[in-house]
């Protein structure tokens, strides 16, 4: 069936709720209202308010409560109304959920859905990409789908995973991206995927930036450009990354997140250490500079990595 990215996530939640009674949705306004983005629309009606639960505005208690329910056998899926609010439950995520299995041997299978990213004139508090914070917190898995099929498949994989999983769903893609999505249950493995073939240069990206990377690649007829969609940030598919570097020897890494200590910094450091001999040119990064995401479209466009910046970075590197 053809679904939007958003519909694919909703379908994934519905499938999980239908097939596994341990699955439980927690969040603000996710019940009858269907959530700020309507991702959970209709679910409360179908599964009842005991499985699709409106919570008070209490992010710490949502995550802590989910962890508690998880260690006694539930599979809670929590929604942050915007990814930005995840900083309000940072402690429960990094110190309780992330460390529980290592410390006590108790698995905390929770999923935390984060409507993230910019490009929607959301301003400093409705545009953030917090993934790197969680990549730097042992015990949390982090996934970031770029298309409808992966969104559903990675969500079902996240719910099935016995560990806490941070699920980044990109607001910009919600209704702009649609694609063929398999019916029923299937799980997308937490590994990278080559979304465009090529061997002169590889662009490594995830989430919304995959689409910018593809556009940039299309714009460059003179060379054959590969695009790697990471899909998962923890675990990071190091093998796939290094294989691309081996094949292409030129690499551009794209982050929508702020530049310093972003996912791309980790990917670049990995390549600089383990892919060094395959390199033919500097490891180029394109990212949002270290500024809050401004509201005005004229300003936001000036900070988010666009097709042009990626294309120019590729051209420059190809000429190296």
């Amino acid at each position, binding site marked *: 069936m053809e679904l939007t990215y958003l519909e694919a996530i909703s379908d994934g939640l519905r499938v999980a709720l239908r097939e596994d009674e341990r699955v439980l949705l927690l969040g603000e306004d996710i019940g009858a*209202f269907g959530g700020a983005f309507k991702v959970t629309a209709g679910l409360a009606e179908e599964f009842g308010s005991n499985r699709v639960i409106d919570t008070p505005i209490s992010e710490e208690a949502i995550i802590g409560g989910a962890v508690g329910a998880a260690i006694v056998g539930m599979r809670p899926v929590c929604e942050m109304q915007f990814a930005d609010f995840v900083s309000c439950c940072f402690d429960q995520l990094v110190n309780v959920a992330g460390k529980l299995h290592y410390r006590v041997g108790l698995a905390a299978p929770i999923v935390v859905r984060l409507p993230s990213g910019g490009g929607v004139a959301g301003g400093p508090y409705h545009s953030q990409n917090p993934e790197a914070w969680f990549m730097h917190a042992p015990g949390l898995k982090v996934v970031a789908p770029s298309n409808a099929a992966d969104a559903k498949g990675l969500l079902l994989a996240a719910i099935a995973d016995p560990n806490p999983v941070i699920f980044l769903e990109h607001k910009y893609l919600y209704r702009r991206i649609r694609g063929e999505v398999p019916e029923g249950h299937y799980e997308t493995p937490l590994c990278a995927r080559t979304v465009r073939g090529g061997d002169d240069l590889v662009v490594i990206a995830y989430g919304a930036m995959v689409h910018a990377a593809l556009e940039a690649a299309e714009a460059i007829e003179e060379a054959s450009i590969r695009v790697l969609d990471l899909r998962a940030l923890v675990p990071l598919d190091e093998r796939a990354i290094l294989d691309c570097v081996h094949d292409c020897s030129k690499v551009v890494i794209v982050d929508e997140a702020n530049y310093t200590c972003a996912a791309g910094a980790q990917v670049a450091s990995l390549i600089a250490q383990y892919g060094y001999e395959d390199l033919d040119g500097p490891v180029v990064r394109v990212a949002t500079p270290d500024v809050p995401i401004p509201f005005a479209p004229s*300003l936001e466009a*000036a900070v988010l990595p666009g097709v042009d910046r990626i294309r120019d970075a590729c051209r420059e590197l190809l000429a190296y």
Partner: protein
Amino acid sequence: MVLTRAIEERGLSLYKQGRVPGSFYDGRGQEATAVGATFALGAADPVCPLIRDLGAHVVKGTPAAAILGHYLGRASGVSHGREGNVHFGDATRGVVGMVSMLPGMMPVAVGMAWAFKLRGERRCALSFFGDGATSVGDWHEAMNLAGLQRVPAIFVLEHNGYAYSTPSARQFVVDPLERAAVYGIAAATVDGNDVEAVFDAVRLARERALDGGGPTLIAAQTMRMHGHGAHDDASYVPAEQLELWAARDPIARQRERLAQLGVDVDAVEAGARAEVDAATQEALAMPAADPASALTGVFCEGEPQLLGSGAAPWSGFAAA
């Protein structure tokens, strides 16, 4: 109030015309609370308005054109395009503004008031917050600290019975008003749609604060007459309830009072309309925020500018 509503009506129509980027939030029906409360402050008393409190900005003196230009993301809007909708402050006028994370400015207001107390200044800080925001940990920490240090702070609870789509019944079982006592904080309840009643309540709270009597929580009973944002039709609110509150419209009520006092309210309203018309032209004529400005100002260089003072037309009276 009239000006506040006129600005928000204009902002909303500009939004519906697609000229305001992002989303749009207003405080329709709650104008009396923001306006009445802020009128009772002295020029040197900082305020932290929230989503429904455009009136606080207006009373503190931020010009209509600067607000409309801000909605539009223009260079000379009050936030210079960095912020949008209700997310803005006016450092020069003692308006700290809000952060999206609720009620994130409560601890900040406590900190300002604390500084005033430590320095022996006769000033107080006022923070607005919604009923739903009382479920957040920050609210508790701020209330506990304020009561403990007996800081000169005023907390105005905008009790409109809803947090987005979630009614109070699913936010808490005991009214936040009753919670003030467990923090050793004085409490008062007031008709939030009666601008004079709100003014008087805050005036008394301010006197208490300045006289070393500590913080006061004022619960303003009111109703959000629009959805949470322009995208929300608030169909979850019973029609009767809205009718009931429509009859209690703060502006209509004040209109009568003033008419009896012989004030030519039509002239006032005409004046407000004219002001907003002119401001709209001015705002629309403003250039878009300059992309180059997106990268500046993350850090402060040189001597920091302290919070300025706002307009306080009635502060003499408030201090009386």
